[in-house]
């Protein structure tokens, strides 16, 4: 405990690259973050910003080849994940770190019964017998509010709706009471009312089990009410990291400000077009030398194109990757 300062997960300068025909794609390029026990971290960014890859790296689930963790440290509860043997990693996966994926329609095996898929987790990790595992699976389904679980447990995924499948995924992920739950866009494929239910469910179970959570999303609205701190990713890099409240109140990066402006505001006047950040995410195989966001940035100056921006510390917990971080920070909040 003492040597990790209460950190459950420490990621230091992680780089995960993919070898493709167009060259090396630096999907994750030098990111660092820490997660304390019981904390919830939000990772936000557009598609292709590297949020999923960084978390798959933590679980060592990067398909290799073409992918490879090139450098960096991943310390989980003091264990150097990169140094573990395959078997040791397997003992962590699903037991101490569990993951929920984006698309519940395709993330469950269509050929196997729900019960089988739930049972195998506790059978491997907790040494359950079939009967124990079955009872445990039932209990987990009850916990995630599947109605009439005795009847549904022997069904197949196609007999469940999208929201129900995501509940099953959550039940599966939490079967062994993991210390860390990584939820990779858990609500993206679901409609809005179901989204709220699923988020409530994760929130409730987190409190009940004391699980740390990493919530990956491209929707700032989702992380706002759930997380303690937020990392904003862009082009494989961390653009801003700050406690949730501070990030929403006083963002110090033009990209974060853009994202915040893009969140639909129900109180917004009717008929006005929704704000969007101009342009497209950059091609991470061919990044320019300067700031990767420069050509989409409304605050960009000549230096942004030329020089890679520094990671500026605003205060103890607030950092921003921008040449003008301090100015942006100072100017925000009043809006």
């Amino acid at each position, binding site marked *: 405990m003492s040597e990790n300062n209460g950190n459950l997960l420490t990621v230091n300068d992680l780089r995960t690259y993919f070898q493709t025909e167009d060259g090396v794609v630096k999907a994750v390029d030098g990111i660092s973050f820490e997660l304390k026990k019981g904390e919830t971290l939000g990772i936000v960014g557009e598609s292709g910003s590297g949020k999923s890859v960084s978390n798959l790296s933590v679980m060592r*689930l990067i398909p290799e080849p073409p992918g490879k963790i090139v450098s960096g440290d991943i310390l989980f509860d003091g264990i150097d994940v990169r140094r573990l043997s395959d078997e040791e990693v397997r003992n962590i996966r*699903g037991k101490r770190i569990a993951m929920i994926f984006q698309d519940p329609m395709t993330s469950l095996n269509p050929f196997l019964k729900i019960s089988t898929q739930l049972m*195998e987790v506790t059978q491997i990790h907790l040494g359950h017998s079939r009967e124990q595992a079955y009872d445990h699976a039932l209990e987990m389904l009850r916990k995630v509010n599947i109605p009439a679980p005795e009847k549904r447990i022997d069904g197949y995924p196609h007999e469940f709706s999208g929201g129900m499948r995501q509940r099953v995924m959550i039940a599966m992920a939490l079967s062994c009471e993991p210390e860390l739950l990584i939820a990779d866009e858990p609500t993206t494929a679901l409609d809005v009312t179901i989204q709220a239910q699923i988020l409530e469910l994760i929130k409730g179970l987190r409190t009940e089990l004391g699980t740390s959570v990493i919530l990956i999303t491209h929707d700032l609205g989702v992380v706002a009410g759930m997380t303690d701190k937020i990392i904003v990713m862009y082009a494989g890099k961390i653009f801003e990291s700050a406690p949730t409240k501070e990030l929403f109140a006083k963002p110090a990066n033009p990209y974060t400000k853009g994202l915040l402006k893009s969140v639909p505001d129900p109180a917004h006047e009717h008929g006005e077009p929704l704000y969007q950040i101009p342009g497209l995410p950059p091609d991470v195989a061919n990044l320019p030398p300067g700031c990767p966001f420069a050509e989409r940035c409304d605050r960009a100056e000549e230096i942004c194109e030329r020089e890679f921006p520094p990671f500026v510390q605003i205060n103890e917990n607030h950092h921003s990757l921008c040449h003008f971080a301090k100015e942006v920070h100072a100017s925000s909040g009043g809006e």
Partner: protein
Amino acid sequence: MLKFILKRLLIIVPMALLVVTVTWVLIRVAPGNFYSTERSLPPAIEENIKKKYGLDQPWYIQYGTMMGNILRLDFGDSLKYQGQSVNEIIARHFPYSAILGLLAYLLALGIGLFAGIVAALKQNSAFDYGSMAAAMLGLSVPNFVLGPLLVLLFSLYLYWLPPARWGGPLYLIMPVVTLAAIYAAYIARLTRAGMLEVMRSDYIRTARAKGLKESKVLLKHALRGGIIPVVSFTGPALASLLAGTVVVEKVFAIPGLGNIFIQSVLNRDEPLILGIVAFLSILIMVANLIVDISYGFLDPRIRYE
């Protein structure tokens, strides 16, 4: 499920009759007949033959009689093999083809699945390239070339295996290999493609994220989805293997159904042709039905009504 099977079994009857009808028309449309030789027969004798076999009747009477016989599953006697019923001939020769076909089927499945799965798991490895090159070769070398080549090598040069005919297990090796080669190649390629597709899917990532061993991920989670394309191929494959493959039986002088079939066509032995055609068409339809039923066991999303 039961209703589905029953329905499919019932459909076999009209389908088989249709196939027989088309065959009958084709035989009648083709010039020549079973008694024609290079010398033309005296008209009186021809009259007699026609009378004896009912060929002097109008075509619809002949067709009706034929259909009536078939519905009673009585195909009559062969015209060429005097005194032998078509049913007897099929019963005598089919076992050769069936044994040969079944063994070839099992061999092809074994080799094909193994090679395909390993190639998919070790994609771009030496095994992958090697087995897929071999599969390409297996697909492109026709069995009338492969058979004689094997005979040349193993019988004429090495004296290891008997070159032809039906005998002990040793006699079976070369025909079975010749027969299985193309199917094994096809199954290997289908398996590889199917497995590669499945191994990339989200639910395999989920299985890995659960901490399952790679062998378990493969056998419990990936295999079922991966071999579905193979299953749809193996139905028709089984049927055509069981039905006897003409070429291989010819090359190795095996008295199977395929050999007899060719002979019956050359002889214009109408009852025998129709009998074999009916038998084979039923066999193929039953094999396809078995495949469709096995889909249901493999993939729970498929429901029959």
